[in-house]
């Protein structure tokens, strides 16, 4: 070899070729540019499907309707109508609480005072809808009792139990 000056260049080319070969093996086949272009969509296409397959846990009140039509209908007539069953009863399709015998979920009901206080702690904030919700002073209003001992959350306006 007459001119040795190019030797380091050959080494560099060799390394680059190695990296490019490694790319063929390592980069997933579906990696590419999506509809939002290289800047915003340079990704592994199948990841969209991965996310779509993610498990749904909150099923919505219609899921409870068929078996619990009494509660479903009763709460509809009350100020609690807008509250989803799962807001207090927990997610219906949660793998963690699945009942082994009948495959129906075993739900954990949140009966804590803190749960009711999410709305019923009085915060009379001007310009906020919280102003309109009736509240109690948790330190004075039967501090040691669960709210549902006296109040029926499904029919809050029907008087005490």
């Amino acid at each position, binding site marked *: 070899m007459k*001119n040795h*000056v*190019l030797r*380091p*260049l050959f080494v*560099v*080319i060799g390394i*680059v070729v190695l*990296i*490019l070969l490694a*790319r063929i093996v390592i980069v997933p086949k579906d*990696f590419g*540019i*999506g*509809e*939002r*272009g*290289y*800047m*915003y*969509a*340079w*990704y*592994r296409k199948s*990841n*969209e499907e*991965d*996310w*779509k*397959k*993610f*498990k*749904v*846990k*909150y099923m*919505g009140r219609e899921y409870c309707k068929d078996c619990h039509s009494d509660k479903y209908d009763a709460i509809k007539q009350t100020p*609690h109508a*807008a*509250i*989803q069953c*799962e*807001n207090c009863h*927990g*997610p219906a399709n*949660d793998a963690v609480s699945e009942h082994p015998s009948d495959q129906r979920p075993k739900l954990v009901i949140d009966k804590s005072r*803190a749960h009711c*206080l*999410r*709305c019923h*702690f*009085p*915060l*009379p*904030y*001007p*310009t*906020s*809808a*919280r102003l309109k*919700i009736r509240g109690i002073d948790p330190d004075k209003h039967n501090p040691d009792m669960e709210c549902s001992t006296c109040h029926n959350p499904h029919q809050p306006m029907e008087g005490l139990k």
Partner: protein
Amino acid sequence: MISRRKFLKNTALGIAGMGISLSALEIIDPRKLFAEVAADKAAVRWAFLVDTYKCVGCGLCVKACKEENEVPYDANVTRTWVERYVLTKTGKLYADTPKGARDGFTTDKIDLNADGIKDISKEGIEKAFFVPKLCNQCDNPPCVQVCPVGATYQAADGVVLVDRKWCIGCGYCIMGCPYGVRFFHPVHHTAEKCNFCYHRITKGLKSACVQACPFGARQIGNIKDPNDPVTVAIRTQRVGVLKSEYGTKPQVYYIGLDEEVR
């Protein structure tokens, strides 16, 4: 003499150019690079509408989100959260979001973190309100722009997703987000963010937070559909977005946004 100089030049140019030119040619098809306009053709573009007048700060949205999206319940990170803003008659602003309002706001005291708890008398409050926050699924998402490996991206319907198998965990996207919606997932250790419950909206369901909200403060819709209630509301009412000065074109619209909202 000339040929030698040429050789030298080639050596250097080659070394410098090698990395860039070869690998660049290999991975970027120039035709695709200019295909960004294609995004307009998509039939769906998810957008979110928050009515801050309706929000009461119950935090049921945060609870539902954490359980639905498997973000550890007790970890101090969350995909969505609710902020409380209290403005006093003396012109001072107090704001907090204890545990991201996972348990709602069940006290009138303001949580100032290391600065302790601030008691504000009811009489001293001029105005106060709650502001739910979540990912804005920006049209120009700076978090996606800065990902060095293509582990986060925007789907054709506008939702920004994170590839948990490809994320290297550098945290650049977390730094790049002006809204603070990103964090490291405590279990998966990859970047994590709100994706409007992608698994739900693509099945025709509402996002978990939208469904859980008893007051209709949160709504999600397709902004490409002119008859969608969210689209109608955004077009016919006075709405605002957060931090528009960053040029991110956020797609979470707010009714009743205050100047003090950060």
